[in-house]
């Protein structure tokens, strides 16, 4: 029971240049081919054993949704086969077919009917649905009067009213407020403990690492990598960073639009002065950075002319654009040396990276002639979004916030 076997799965969509092309093809019985084939999925083979949890990750357009649609049976594969043993519940499109004018309760009954539950079971699980959705008195109000969060809560409660043998979840759907999200995750975990097979699709490698033992990375409709969740997610993150930083490395002059420390006039000159040859490396213990790891950031630049007092700085901004940290060799009290044209200078900043998991921007700056409290005579280079990097969930997870203070605890 509750096994998923996927063999050599492929899905081809037909693109017809004109509608007449389809007619010609249909009338000729398929002898005259008038369409362009477009494979969104091809040669996908994997299986998920009973009670196992597998996470699927991939960029948009990698074929994730198509795979899910085939697994749930809404789309028919062009080649290959899918076998799902046991009752499948899918949390993909919640609230499909709910009617706005009916009450929450009526829609809940309909949702159960759509899952093919018998009448006796529906009346048995209905109180549980009402209870879990926390809609209380609203359950007998029309569905259209619900907030989107309430609609999601009802739909999730209906979809998970009965423990399925196989649960397919698209994590892209966020269900209600934080408290309810937590409740949903708990319910999914509870199902896992009771032996439900889980297939989770997510954009977040961390979620997959937390919920699943195995991982699959899809790219261009094929399985790029498959294995234990952690190594597949590390690979995914590394490939994502590569993809993200490539353009900014080739065209550093694109930093034009980024806010500058000095006037715009100066910045234009500056790019020439540094020759544009600036590179930054983030070095961790492994090929991905986990919260709490020791991390080194090395910034190297080549100068196009003579400077007396060149300095290199870095900063880290979080997703919200808030600068979490910013400093440079001048403010940190480091001595540098004068440089002649064509000479390179590199600075390495090492620190325990106690930031919370998430995506961060690396800020890079180069300047000359420090004075006062961190001011410079000439700004040579400044980019607030030099590259993106990701900090993954680390070993110590017993804290929340943006920075791990690592406090010592004494209970008296």
């Amino acid at each position, binding site marked *: 029971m509750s096994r998923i076997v996927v063999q050599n799965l492929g899905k081809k*969509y*037909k693109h017809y240049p004109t*509608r007449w092309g*389809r*007619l010609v093809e*249909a009338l000729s019985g398929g002898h005259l081919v008038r369409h362009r084939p477009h494979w969104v999925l091809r040669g996908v083979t994997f299986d998920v054993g009973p009670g196992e949890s597998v996470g699927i990750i991939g960029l948009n357009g990698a074929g994730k949704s198509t795979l899910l*649609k085939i697994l*749930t*049976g*809404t*789309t*028919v594969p062009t080649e290959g086969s899918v076998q799902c043993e046991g009752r*499948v519940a*899918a949390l*993909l*499109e919640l609230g*499909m*077919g709910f*009617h706005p*004018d*009916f009450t929450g309760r*009526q829609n809940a*009954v*309909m949702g*159960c*009917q*759509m899952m*093919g*539950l*018998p*009448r006796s079971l*529906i009346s048995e699980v209905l109180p549980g649905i009402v209870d879990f959705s926390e809609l209380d008195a609203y359950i007998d109000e029309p569905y259209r009067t619900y907030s989107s969060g309430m609609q999601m809560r009802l739909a999730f409660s209906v979809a998970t009213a009965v423990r399925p043998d196989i649960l397919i979840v698209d994590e892209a759907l966020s269900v209600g407020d934080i408290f309810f999200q937590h409740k949903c995750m708990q319910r999914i975990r509870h199902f896992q403990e009771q032996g439900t097979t889980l297939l989770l699709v997510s954009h977040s490698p961390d979620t997959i690492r937390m919920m699943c033992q195995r991982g699959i990375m899809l790219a261009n409709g094929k399985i790029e990598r498959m294995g234990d969740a952690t190594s597949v997610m590390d690979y995914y993150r590394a490939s994502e960073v590569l993809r993200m930083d490539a353009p900014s490395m080739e065209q550093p002059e694109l930093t034009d639009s980024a806010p500058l420390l000095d006037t715009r006039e100066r910045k234009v000159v500056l790019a020439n002065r540094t020759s544009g040859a600036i590179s930054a490396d983030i070095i961790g213990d492994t090929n991905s950075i986990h919260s709490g790891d020791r991390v080194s950031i090395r910034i190297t630049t080549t100068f196009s002319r003579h400077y007396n007092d060149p300095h290199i700085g870095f900063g880290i901004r979080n997703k919200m654009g808030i600068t979490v940290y910013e400093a440079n060799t001048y403010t940190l009290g480091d001595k540098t040396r004068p440089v002649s044209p064509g000479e390179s200078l590199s600075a390495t900043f090492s620190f325990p990276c106690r930031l919370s998991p998430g995506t961060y921007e690396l800020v890079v700056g180069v300047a000359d002639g420090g004075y006062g409290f961190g001011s410079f005579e000439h700004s040579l280079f400044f980019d607030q979004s030099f590259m993106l990097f990701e900090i993954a969930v680390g070993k110590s997870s017993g804290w929340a916030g943006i920075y791990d203070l690592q406090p010592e605890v004494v209970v008296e």
Partner: protein
Amino acid sequence: MWTYRGFVLGSVKREFQVRYLGSLLGAAWTFISPISLIFVYVVVFSQVMRARLPGVTDTLGYGVFLCAGVFTWGYFTEVLNRCLTIFLEQANMLKKSPFPRSSLPLIALLSSTVNFAIVACLFLLFLLLTSRFPGPALIAMLPLLLIQQAMAVGLGVLLGTLNVFFRDVGQLMGIVLQFWFWLTPIVYPPSILPEWIRSLIESWNPMAPLIAGYQQIVLTGRWPEPTDYVVPVIIASGSLILGYLAFRRLSGEMVDEL
């Protein structure tokens, strides 16, 4: 399919609820509109316009004749038209929700049948009140209706499936049904037609013997002749088979097109 009977029956029920949701009289409308239709056909045509059927002395004869044809034809086209567009209407559900696709035409058939049953009961009540109740031959309506609806579902599913790929089918059917209506003796008796058209219609239009059967049962209480229905039965089973084959073959590809 059997597992989803709750869904099918629930959907039929909801369709009714939706229709009268937010109206004060609610389900009463289910009865008001057919009653007014019967009134129009019987009273207005027979009494006001004084339309008479040739050879029938009954003053209400033409109204009864009209009702027998129009209501059954309406039942036929309702199922046909709904099957024609049901896959397009439910595109979102088909794309995103796993449930047996064949439940959609079934829902269309069942809810139209409930509609027709209400109209038919009211019409029979009217016949009873005016002491024109046709008697035991009424039972013969059922097999005729069965043939008719088999044809409606078969054609509807076949054309509805094709309509997903070529929307022209839906447009074309609107015109075809217009012609079909007037080429079937529904509002006129076949006797007013020239002989050659009449024989053409009687041998090639499968709806003609069906409608003629209803009219004959209701007006005269005579049993219909089984041999008249060989062609309709053949066409009905043929369209059912074709519809099934087309649906089975294309229902997968249909979702990609929607």
